[in-house]
């Protein structure tokens, strides 16, 4: 995830997360991680992290269990597609 600790001297712009606002508002489907299926949570070890690797938004963390920053997640569903054990499911926002 992005950080706001950039020490570069900038004239006008301030680099950091959320330049387009809370992009999580764009989401139509919410990714939910099932800790019982997730390899990293099950083994309690840093293992595959494919969801982190393939996230275009960089909102996944490489933690155990992996967590999603829902403030900026746009809900594209790539993490659910690449998960080798189908631990992530996409749930329609209106059903929550």
């Amino acid at each position, binding site marked *: 995830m992005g*950080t706001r600790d950039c020490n570069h001297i900038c004239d006008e712009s301030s680099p950091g997360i959320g330049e387009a606002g809370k992009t999580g508002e764009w989401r139509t489907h919410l990714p939910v991680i099932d800790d019982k299926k997730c390899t990293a949570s099950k083994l309690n070890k840093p293992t595959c992290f494919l969801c982190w690797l393939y996230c275009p938004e960089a909102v996944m963390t490489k933690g155990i269990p992996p967590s999603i920053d829902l403030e900026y997640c746009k809900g594209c569903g790539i993490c659910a597609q690449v998960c080798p054990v189908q631990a992530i499911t996409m749930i329609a926002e209106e059903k929550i």
Partner: protein
Amino acid sequence: METLSIYAPKLITSREYIASGHRACSGCGEVLAMRYVCKALGRNTIISNATGCMEIISTPLPQTAWEVPWIHTLFENASAVASGIECGLKALKRKHGYTREVKVVAMGGDGATADIGLQSLSGAMERGHDFIYVCYDNEAYMNTGIQRSSETPFGASTTTAPSGKASMGQHTWQKNMAAIAAAHEIQYVATSCSSYPFDIMTKVEKAIKIKGPSYIHILSVCPTGWRCPSNSTIKMGRLAVETGIFPMYEIENGKYTLNIDLPKLRPVEDYLKLQGRFRHLDKDNTAEIQEKVLDEYNKVKRLAAGNKAK
């Protein structure tokens, strides 16, 4: 990350140089490729970015998502600005004892690379500036609303080359940018795809080590312009490589290496039928595309095999 066989995302740095919360469409393959490129480049980088998707999504004026020095240039002069920066750094080193090793990187979409910015790219490569050019090829001018570019594949429907009764969409074949770059006899040219993170990072790391110009062409899946679901980004990129539509290879000092050499290619239908922009194609068109794809793929394969024989 010496070879593709090492499979360990946990070894990749978790530092992000393009912050989350940017304006890219959900499921954008281009920003994904840019994320990998920036991870491999690291902090000592100056980026000169041509107008295009990656510029407009990351920098509306008061804010920016970039955490490395970055400059916006026009479509036509990303490489010219990069060569200027590189010369400036050289002068700093010569006159003022500046010691940091900084890599200059020019970035652009396929429009900024193959159409509008080709002259400045060609000039910069010919002059031999020490820089990397990264082209994010999403096969049309996506940021202005899917207009055709010279990288748009044959048969694709775009807003300026629409399919209908009179036309079948784009009627010309793609420009081979990697071959154009290789014709400048630069040390390193590579093609990669947004669905292969380790491949991108290995290639960028190779390019950093080279003193002189290098060119990396990355096929970046665009779900909005290709008319496919946002979650199919990774699958679509892999299919492009597995069908042979986009062969992933590198040219080091004129030596070709095919990075992913499959024993049997998948039929192109697997790739075409999943995308809305190819929906109108009939069997004859598909057969024509299949023939051309095999032809191009075998050309690269022969070049790679020729090197092995030597």
